[in-house]
């Protein structure tokens, strides 16, 4: 099977998705605190960067990144890839998230998470994601599901209509 994007909703300009992704990252206090930034965003897809800092370590003796950091960044990228799939902004909620840890992250290197929302239905969004420090060496892969329109209070309710 492949993970090509299966979504018949209208596609916006590339600029739209970058704007959505950057707004989301800037608007989330936890992302701001960690310095998460958007490297790339397009229809159904996003690449996030988490700059290395010592706070991310789980094992200082061996210099390894805490597993929870990868889970958190992947959760973040996965949700954002759903926002980059939606025809217009609506609130979403993570239903479940599964993570397979291939190898630990190491101290001193920035961490990236790439996510693709490969299927969007009227109710549910399905996402695959991978976290890495070196592009060819995945640290963790993940699959997750999100519920659409989970709340009336949208993330971007104040900006609705603009794009």
């Amino acid at each position, binding site marked *: 099977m492949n993970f090509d994007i299966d979504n018949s909703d209208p596609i916006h300009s590339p600029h739209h998705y970058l704007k959505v992704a950057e707004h989301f990252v800037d608007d989330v206090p936890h992302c701001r605190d960690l310095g998460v930034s958007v490297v790339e965003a397009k229809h159904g897809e996003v690449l996030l960067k988490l700059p290395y800092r010592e706070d991310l370590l789980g094992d200082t003796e061996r210099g390894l990144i805490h*597993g*929870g950091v990868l889970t958190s960044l992947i959760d973040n990228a996965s949700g954002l890839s759903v926002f980059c799939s939606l025809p217009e902004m609506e609130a979403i909620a993570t*239903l479940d998230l599964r993570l397979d840890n291939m190898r630990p992250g190491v101290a001193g290197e920035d961490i990236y998470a790439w996510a693709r929302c490969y299927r969007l239905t009227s109710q549910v969004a399905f996402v695959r994601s991978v976290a890495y420090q070196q592009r060819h060496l995945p640290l963790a892969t993940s699959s997750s599901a999100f519920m659409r329109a989970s709340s009336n*209070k949208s*993330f971007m309710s104040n900006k609705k209509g603009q794009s």
Partner: protein
Amino acid sequence: MSLSSALQQARDGGEFDSLSQEIPYARYLGIGMQRDDRGLIFELPFQEKLIGNHLLPALHGGVVAGFMEHSALLHLMVEQAQNRLPKTVDFSLDYLRSAGAKNTYARCEVTRQGRRVAHVQIVCWQDNPDKPVAAARVHFVLEDIVEDKQSSDANPL
């Protein structure tokens, strides 16, 4: 203080603060732990920087995930007999309710601990333990903690 001596202190004296201090990400999130009559309980005190959605407001889903994974890790380290370092193989998390901007708690249960693999379940709640915000399970592979830094593999890549 090394991780293994902090671990010994937690097991023998029920003194958990130095264990949390030894782990930078736990320190960053502000995770605390203590023992009560039902076993180990983990606490994630609310902080502004943990917010994921300031309109609801709600904690960042990834923070809840990281907190639960860390709780399972420490639970296993403190409760198991030997000094073995659990490595997360896979982690599966179900979100049940939105986590509000308040203190969050977790308890863990070791469902099975074999020679190499352990299965741990985690439940996380805020006001009411009967209304969990998330439930998760982790598989850990256990390996001996290497005391000698020279012989430990600093870079597993």
